[in-house]
C-alpha cells in the first residue's frame, strides 16, 4: 500500500541523501553550503511527516536561516578556494579521516539493521501526534525541563557576551 506519506517520505529522503553526498563532494565550499541548506530543508520536511511541526520550522529558522548564513559569510570573506588543499598539507590526516569514517559507517549499519526497538515504542505511537506541537513543547520546557532550559539560556548568554568581549578589544 503506497500512501501519500510514503511518497513524501521517499522524496524528502532521496533529496536528503543526494544533497548530503553533494555537500562533501563539491570542490567549491559555497556550493557545498548551498546543498547543506537544501539538506536542512529536506530534514525539515521529514520532521513535518513525523508530526513535529515546531522542530521542522525551528530547523529552518535556526539552521538554514541563521547558522548557515553566518557560515556563508565566513566562507565568502575568507575565500578558502584560493587556499591549499587540507589533505595535501597533512597527508597523514587522510588515513585518520578514513578510519573515523568507516567506524561511524559501521555504527550506523549496526543501529539500523541489528539494533532492537524499544518495547514501549508501539504504545507511544499514538501519543506522538501531540508531542510535536508547540503547546506540548512549551509546556515541557517550562515545567519538567525548566532548570535545564534556563541553564542553557544562561550558557548561551554567557557565550554571546564572551564573543562580544573577544571581538571588541577596547570598550568606550
Amino acid at each position, binding site marked *: 500500500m503506497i500512501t501519500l506519506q510514503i511518497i513524501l517520505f521517499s522524496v524528502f529522503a532521496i533529496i536528503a541523501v543526494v544533497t548530503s553526498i553533494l555537500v562533501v563532494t563539491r570542490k567549491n565550499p559555497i556550493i557545498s553550503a*548551498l546543498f547543506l541548506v537544501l539538506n536542512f530543508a529536506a530534514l525539515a520536511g521529514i520532521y513535518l511527516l513525523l508530526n513535529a511541526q515546531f522542530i521542522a*520550522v525551528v530547523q*529552518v*529558522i535556526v539552521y538554514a*536561516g541563521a547558522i548557515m*548564513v553566518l557560515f556563508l559569510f565566513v566562507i565568502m570573506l575568507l575565500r578558502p578556494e584560493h587556499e591549499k588543499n587540507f589533505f595535501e598539507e597533512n597527508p597523514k590526516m587522510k588515513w585518520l579521516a578514513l578510519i573515523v569514517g568507516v567506524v561511524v559507517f559501521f555504527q550506523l549499519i549496526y543501529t539500523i539493521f541489528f539494533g532492537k526497538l524499544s518495547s514501549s515504542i508501539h504504545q507511544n505511537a499514538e501519543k506522538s501526534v501531540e508531542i510535536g506541537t508547540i503547546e506540548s513543547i512549551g509546556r515541557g520546557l517550562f515545567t519538567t525541563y525548566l532548570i535545564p532550559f534556563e541553564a542553557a539560556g544562561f550558557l548561551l548568554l554567557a557565550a554571546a557576551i564572551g564573543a562580544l568581549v573577544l571581538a571588541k578589544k577596547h570598550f568606550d
Partner: protein
Amino acid sequence: MGILELIIVSLIKIIVIAVVMLLTVSYLVYFERKIAAWAQNRIGPNRVGPAGIFQPFADVLKLLLKEDIVPTAANKQMHTLAPMIALFVAFSTFAVLPVGPSFTAFGKVFSFVVADVNIGILYVLALTSVGVYAITFSGWSSGSKYSLLGGIRSSAQMISYEISMGFSVAGVILLAESLRPIAIVNAQSGWMWNIILQPIGFITFLVSAFAETNRLPFDLPEAEPELVGGYHTEYSSMKFAAFFLSEYANMIISSALIVTLYLGGWQIPYLELLNLSAGWVVILQVGAFIFKLVFIMFFFIWVRWSIPRFRYDQLMNIGWKVMFPLSLLNLLWVAILAMIL
C-alpha cells in the same frame, strides 16, 4: 474533506493568490510611480493607455525583450538561482495569511487562507530568514565588488532587524496564545487591536518590516549613489525583473502581516450591531482587509518619497540600540497586560 478535494481546493487558491499578487505587484509599481510624481510635482507615467494604466505591461514586455547578460566573473548557476529564491520566498509566504473569515456555503466550510497551520507565524519568519540567501547569493555570485558589498550589507541588515521583528511578534503571540494567524485575528475582535494594546510593538514591527523589505529609508543594499545598484547591479532582463517583482511582493506580504498582526486582520468593530446577513458580513470583512492592506501599502510608498536614506552606521545603531531594547520593553508590557486581561 477527501485528500483529492483538498488538493484541488488548495491548487485553486494558490492560482488565485499567484495571479492576484502578480497583478497587484504590477499596479503597485504603477501607483508608486504616480505617487512619486505627485509628491515631486510631476505628472508620472501617462503615455501607455488612458492615464498610463497599461504602463506595467509595457514595462514587463520591455524587460522580457532585453538581453540577459551574465558577467564573465559570475558563477552562472548561483547567479540564476538567486532571483529564483527571491521569487519563491516572496510568493510562498502568503499561504498562511488569512484574507477573511471562514464561511459556510453549499454545506461546506471554506476559508480565505491556503494553509491554516498552527505554526503559521513561525512559517513566515522561517521563509523570511531563507530570503536572506537570495540577496547573499546574488551579491556573491555576480563577481562584482558593488554586488558583494550590497549583499553583505543587506544580509547584516536583515539579520539585525529579524531580532526586533521576532520579539515584536512574540508580543502578539503572547496575547493571542496561538501561532495560528486566524486565531491571532480572532483574538483582536472589536477594538482589541494590537496596535492599541501594544503601540510600541507596532512601531518596532513596522520599522523592522521596512528594513526587511529593503525599502527606503532603509534601502542601503541598493543605495544608488554609493553602490550603483547593490546586489542586483549585475542583473538584467527577466532576472532583474524577478528581483523587482519579489521586492514589491515582499511589500504586499509585509503589509498583510502588519494588518493581520496589529490592525485586526478582517475585523470591523461594532459590525455585529448592524445585524447583517452572513454573506454581507463576509464580503464587508474581506473588503476591510483589502482596505487596510491598501492603506499600509500606500504608507510604504508615502514614507519612501518623504524620508531620505539613513547612513549605514545609523541603520545599525537604530536596529541594535533602539529597536531591539524597545521590542524587549514591549514584550515586558505585553506580559503585564496578559496578566491583567
